[in-house]
């Protein structure tokens, strides 16, 4: 809620910029609303994007909480997606309940491994997690390219994609959510994403482990003195981060298409950074902001169709404006200016000696 005014301000600026391109701001707003709620298919596709963004947003924010910047959510979701497909195509004989459990386990483990690598390197070798996670993005892209081009290319298609995995590995035959939105890709993992966000909220507010993790993030040396091992929590938080990112891979592979398509993620991992920052790392705020980002992402192609001048690149400007607005609000909050409905608009809080509110 803290960044709500910033969001409105950013949106307002974005819509004003639209005027420069010769479009009516109200019309643009109308298209954006229609593009996300217009039909069951539209709403479903928006929720599908939202699912992946909740997972990656949670992934990035979990690392943030313990003072780490995880740029590798993209690589983590990629790696877990390819691992799941490789697993399912290597053991097609496994039957239903076991198959689904196994593939989810593979997804979780592979995400965890891809998070553990930068975690261990950071904790025991001091390598900077930004560099390592970023490099691992390329590594996982290379691994998936190798499998798709050399081992798993779908023989029926020219697209770089794997064959479709067996039904026993997928959720779509008992997916009640997907039935509500015919033809759209939204699936059960939307529910899983919401549950994951709620779980992370309780993890950080109600459990000792979560508290310790935040303590390490706030001040590692103070945490050490309070007998909390900062090394341990660097690893734990990046592993958790990787596991959360793998949810975006499951959303695509297990929940929706049943195959690995190169380019299936329009950089969900990087959009997740924006989602996490906008919501100030609050797990429940992530749900709201993931929705906003997915509306903009879905809206980008519809704006392209419906208007003359707002192309998909222009939509990026709109997204950036909203992000700036939220960032501005964060900056103002930090220096003690808060906006509130109840206490008048500008109210300056007293600062303590450290400059914190």
């Amino acid at each position, binding site marked *: 809620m803290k960044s709500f005014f910033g969001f409105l301000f950013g949106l307002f600026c974005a819509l004003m910029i639209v005027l420069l391109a010769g479009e*009516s701001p*109200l*019309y643009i*707003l*109308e298209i954006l609303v229609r593009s996300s709620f217009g*039909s069951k*298919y539209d709403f479903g*596709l928006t929720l*599908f994007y939202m699912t992946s963004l909740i997972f990656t947003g949670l992934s990035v924010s979990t690392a943030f909480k313990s003072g780490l910047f995880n740029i590798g959510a993209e690589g983590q979701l990629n790696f877990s997606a390819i691992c799941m497909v490789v697993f399912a195509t290597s053991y097609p004989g496994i039957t239903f309940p076991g198959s689904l459990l196994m593939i989810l386990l593979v997804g979780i483990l592979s995400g965890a491994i891809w998070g553990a690598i930068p975690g261990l390197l950071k904790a025991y070798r001091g390598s900077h997690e930004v560099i390592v996670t970023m490099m691992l993005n390329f590594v996982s892209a290379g691994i998936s*390219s190798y499998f*798709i*081009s050399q081992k798993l290319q779908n023989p029926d*298609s*020219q*697209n*770089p994609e794997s064959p479709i995995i067996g039904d026993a590995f997928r959720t779509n035959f008992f997916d009640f959510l997907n039935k509500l939105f015919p*033809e759209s*890709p939204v699936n059960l993992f939307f529910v899983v994403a919401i549950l994951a966000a709620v779980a992370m909220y309780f993890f950080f507010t109600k459990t000792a482990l979560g508290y310790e993790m935040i303590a390490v993030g706030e001040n590692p040396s103070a945490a050490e003195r309070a007998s909390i091992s900062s090394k341990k929590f660097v690893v734990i938080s990046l592993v958790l981060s990787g596991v959360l990112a793998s949810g975006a891979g499951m959303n695509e592979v297990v929940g929706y298409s049943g195959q690995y*398509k*190169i*380019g*299936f*993620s*329009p950089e969900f991992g990087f959009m997740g950074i924006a989602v996490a920052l906008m919501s100030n790392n609050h797990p429940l705020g992530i749900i709201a902001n993931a929705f906003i980002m997915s509306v903009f*992402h*879905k809206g*980008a*192609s*519809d704006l*392209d*169709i419906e208007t003359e001048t707002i*192309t*998909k690149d222009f939509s990026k400007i709109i997204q950036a404006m909203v992000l700036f607005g939220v960032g501005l609000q964060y900056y103002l909050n930090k220096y003690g200016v808060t906006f509130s409905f109840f206490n008048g608009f500008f109210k300056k809080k007293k600062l303590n000696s450290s400059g914190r509110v």
Partner: protein
Amino acid sequence: MFIKCILALFLFASLGQTAEKLKIGLVLDKGGKEDKSFNSAAYQGASLAEKELGIELKYVEATDVNSIENLHRQFAKKKFDLVIGIGFAQQDAVKKVAVQNPDTKFVIVDGEVSASNVRSLMFEEHQGSFLVGYLAAMKSKTKKVGYIGGMDIPLIRRFAVGFEAGVKHFDKSFTILENYIGITADSWNNPAKAKELALNQYQQGADIIFVAAGASNSGVFDAAEEKKKLVIGVDSNQNWMKPGFILTSMLKRVDQGVYATIKDLKEGKFTSGTVRYGLKDKGIDYAMDKYNEKLVTAADVKKLDAIKADIISGKIVVPDFYLMKKK
């Protein structure tokens, strides 16, 4: 309420204007309208139709794999008369959406979909590649030529196989260097990598490179200029981009196919099924203009036209990667 009123006004306005015009939606591949090659050709064909046939044209570019289907769906929902999907990557989306929207006509370029409202446009790329391969061999002094493909997929292999056959038809002792930029859709838009590969091939002694890589082509053209070597462009006529260094361009007249389809629709002659374009109907050709007339002499053109006639008459059979794969 206010917003709704405005929207209603907008809708009325647009309905009033375009009641009789045919509405054509064009969904471009990731390379985008400005790739000066494959997508550009499609866009030119459609905008020519807009000018001459008085249709209403709307073009869009896909943001990600999942958005392609969305774009086709939105066009169909907006009651467009014809939706054109450019590139094999849209085949699945067209297949899915066409069945559900029988009132809208669809066109897919470089892919085949069998449905009563879909026309598939296929091009005989291997024939044109054979022809430019033969020309490259005629012009090469080092007996070494290169091929650079964009994304490593059967379609682009088809260019390579045709090109190789053309070179070998001239002289069996030639060496052909073959590289691909990558295996993702980004390969169509990576001039830096293309330039690197081209410099490498020139370094190894190739003096002419045939490049089929969409917007990445410009990287190879830069390399040719830098090394004072020759290059052959693809899809659109690219001779003008680096005059003096581009030997010719293998034309894949996507523009012609798109234009013809729109015209057919306008005249009520739209048919479903696959339409194949080749050397015969000039859907595939090589480009001659003022930019390369010094590089390719009249005598060369004569020889090439003889080869072309032989291919059309079936005297020369060009190997087709698609058929080789099936065996």
